[in-house]
């Protein structure tokens, strides 16, 4: 976006309509309410107007809201009157990345695994007549400390105090959360400091009390937790009640974590909400978590499409059956990144057992054997982001969640996914967008982000709000209104798939060389107003639309490597899913 950028409007009214709509989307308001403000904005160029909106503090709200949307979370609202609601604090990465954009820093810190600690708005605790809110908060937080101090004292002589220690522990997590919430600390904050890596404290103790583990490290862990909680509580109590809420994204402070900064209990990308809503179990293992990562970071919704089964394929259990393998070949290696995380996201990396959210405890080595790589594979774990079942060179293997977020940071699929989500967020989830236009925006975004990812994101948002789709007052959700420069939509197949066929298939299936008589770059009336691809048999007679679509569907989804299309070429999962879903829908028409 350059200051000289402008786009024409058919009338002054339309420009004002665009200003109002743009303000609503990127400033989180209904629009520009003040008449004089609207009149003065209407005199500016579109780029200047968007720059003004992006300089407004409410742009930070948009950034958090969009980031949360990208991460798969939709708060009811970001703001309540003049402060940012507790709900906005569910994923720390959304705040980090929003703050980065506001200072033109690195937007891709949204992919940092380790994140600062942000805590949501403090609430007014319930008070009885004559009670002071500060006193109530202090009373509840003191109760938290009393409990933790007792745990530390008991842990000093565990052989003697085991029974009492474990009795205290048994009620601890719900009690602590309750005390914290009653102390006027928001629910999001209460979960943040008790769930996920923070609950490793409970994992260690739980293993000792109920899992037969040794007491190694318990005292240190309990002490660290107690001291860290004290650090947080001191900060909470020190907040001026008048300033106990964050009014702007820029102003959200990073909290000191104390001992919580240690690697195994450090705040990470995957907030409490992730662990609570995506539990693992002794049967499903970590697949919910794996599916979440594929869906939200790679835009892969796990549509089951057959894949080519490799020669050395194992058989006989779920996940290896051919129809199940269509998803499990990528889902299981992704789930493997979470193999050390048990109940409530507790980190069991340093323990020899693991307890799942269904409270089943198993031997960790036995459980993790499913992900052990076979001999001669040159890696320890079959964990990673899997693109192909036949070409291992394009797969990325790793072991730890930190590695996963490095993979995401470097993968073009994740960048494309950001662009796709930005289009959905801005233009509407059900609105068709030409795949070539999306690819054009993605390439622009990737190129620009090599210089500055925040400016690249702002430019992406700018391009979306000045798009013809955005401007159209009454868009047809099945039509596309924007195309990549130089692209002529006339005579092309429907916009959802035209570009994908062109990119992946046109080398062999275009008017200049229609293998099998099929041209996937054109969309013609094959008689009676029925449209299909030009597809001729040996006698130069056009196949019926149903025959053509059936052949395409079969060739895209067959497990036979010889027959599968595109031939000897990698097609991204997302592109393949779009094509197959479109062909199947067309077949039903």
């Amino acid at each position: 976006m350059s200051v000289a950028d402008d786009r024409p409007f058919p009338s002054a009214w339309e420009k004002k309509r665009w200003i109002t709509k743009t303000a609503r989307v990127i400033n989180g308001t209904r629009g520009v309410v003040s008449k004089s403000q609207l009149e003065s904005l209407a005199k500016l160029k579109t780029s200047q107007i968007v720059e003004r909106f992006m300089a407004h503090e409410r742009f930070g709200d948009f950034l958090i809201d969009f980031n949360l949307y990208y991460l798969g979370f939709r708060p009811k609202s970001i703001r309540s009157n003049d402060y940012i609601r507790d709900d906005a604090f569910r994923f720390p990465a959304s705040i980090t990345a929003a703050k980065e954009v506001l200072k033109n820093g690195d937007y891709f810190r949204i992919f940092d695994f380790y994140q600062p600690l942000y805590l949501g708005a403090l609430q007014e605790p319930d008070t009885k007549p004559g009670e002071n809110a500060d006193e109530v908060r202090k009373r509840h937080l003191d109760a938290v400390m009393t409990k933790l101090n007792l745990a530390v004292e008991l842990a000093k002589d565990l052989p003697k105090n085991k029974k009492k220690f474990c009795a205290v522990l048994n009620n601890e997590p719900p009690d602590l959360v309750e005390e914290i919430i009653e102390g006027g600390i928001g629910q999001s904050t209460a979960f943040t400091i008790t769930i996920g890596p923070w609950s490793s404290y409970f994992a260690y103790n739980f293993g000792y009390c109920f899992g037969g583990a040794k007491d190694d490290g318990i005292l240190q862990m309990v002490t660290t937790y107690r001291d860290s909680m004290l650090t947080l509580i001191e900060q909470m109590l020190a907040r001026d009640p008048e300033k106990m809420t964050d009014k702007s994204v820029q102003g959200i402070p990073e909290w000191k974590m104390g001992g919580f900064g240690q690697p195994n209990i450090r705040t990470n990308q995957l907030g409490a909400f992730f662990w609570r809503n995506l539990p693992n179990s002794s049967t499903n293992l970590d697949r919910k978590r794996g599916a979440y990562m594929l869906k939200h970071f790679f835009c892969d919704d796990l549509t089951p499409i057959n894949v080519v089964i490799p020669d050395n394929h194992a058989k006989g259990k779920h996940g290896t059956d051919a129809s199940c393998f269509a998803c499990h070949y990528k889902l299981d290696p992704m789930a493997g990144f979470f193999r050390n995380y048990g109940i409530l996201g507790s980190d069991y990396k340093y323990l020899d057992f693991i307890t799942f959210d269904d409270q089943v405890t198993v031997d960790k080595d036995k459980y993790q054997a499913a992900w052990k790589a076979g001999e001669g594979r040159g890696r320890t774990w079959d964990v990673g982001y899997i693109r192909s079942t036949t070409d291992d060179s394009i797969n990325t293997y790793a072991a730890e969640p930190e590695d996963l977020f490095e993979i995401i940071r470097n993968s073009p699929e994740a960048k494309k996914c950001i662009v796709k989500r930005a289009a959905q967020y801005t233009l509407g989830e059900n609105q068709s967008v030409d795949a070539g236009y999306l690819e054009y925006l993605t390439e622009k975004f990737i190129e620009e982000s090599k210089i500055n990812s925040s400016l690249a994101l702002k430019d992406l948002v700018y391009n979306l709000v000045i798009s013809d789709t955005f401007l159209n007052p009454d868009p047809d959700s099945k039509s596309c209104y924007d195309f990549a420069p130089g692209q002529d939509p006339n005579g092309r197949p429907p916009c959802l798939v035209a570009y994908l066929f062109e990119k992946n298939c046109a080398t062999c299936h275009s008017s200049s060389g229609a293998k099998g008589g099929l041209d996937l770059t054109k969309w013609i009336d094959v008689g009676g107003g029925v449209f299909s691809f030009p597809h001729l048999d040996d006698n130069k007679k056009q196949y019926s639309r149903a025959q053509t679509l059936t052949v395409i569907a079969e060739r895209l989804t067959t497990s036979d490597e010889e027959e599968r299309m595109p031939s000897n070429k990698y097609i991204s999962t997302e592109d393949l899913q779009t094509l197959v879903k479109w062909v199947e829908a067309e077949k039903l028409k």
Partner: protein
Amino acid sequence: MGGSGEVKMRLALALLLICTGALGKLDNSGEFFGARNTNKKIYQGLLNGTATFQLSEYVGSDALGNLLGYQPGGLDTTFRNGIPNPTNMMLWSLAFEKFSHDIGKVCHGNSDDSMAKQLREDVLADVLTLCSWPSDKARDEELWDRLWLYALAYDAPESEVVAWKTFFMTSYEVSTPEQLVSDAFFSIFMNPHYLLRK
């Protein structure tokens, strides 16, 4: 206006909505803004800071309000009940008919009137001017433009406001000023550009 006149007027309003073209695409574009967002929109455009208005009260309860479209929140990012159907259209119509009726009652000039106390000062002044229909002041096009903008801002194409004004200036059969105010607002609220996000 008697019974048949009212039916005629409702038909004319429905025709107005359909003629503007937007209803024709309800099947494939747009979802309701939902009860919460629409409530917010009403506050931002029409009501003052002391208002206690809740749109969902007009349909009976928050639960019914959910039928007008809502965001469940959390990992479920799907907007619920956003696709227009006969049931939720009836609920929207019911809610806005009551709300518009309450705005129309402002014409009685009762200073204790609940809606009069909740409307923004400039909105109230313009509504009261419209209550003087058919005075010249009430026929002033700028007044009508302002009323439209209070409620709908620039969320609709200009052709919509032109069609709206033309209808009320030329074809609408006025019964009472109260009814005029009520119908003028009702027809804005039921405009697809008011109800639907595009």
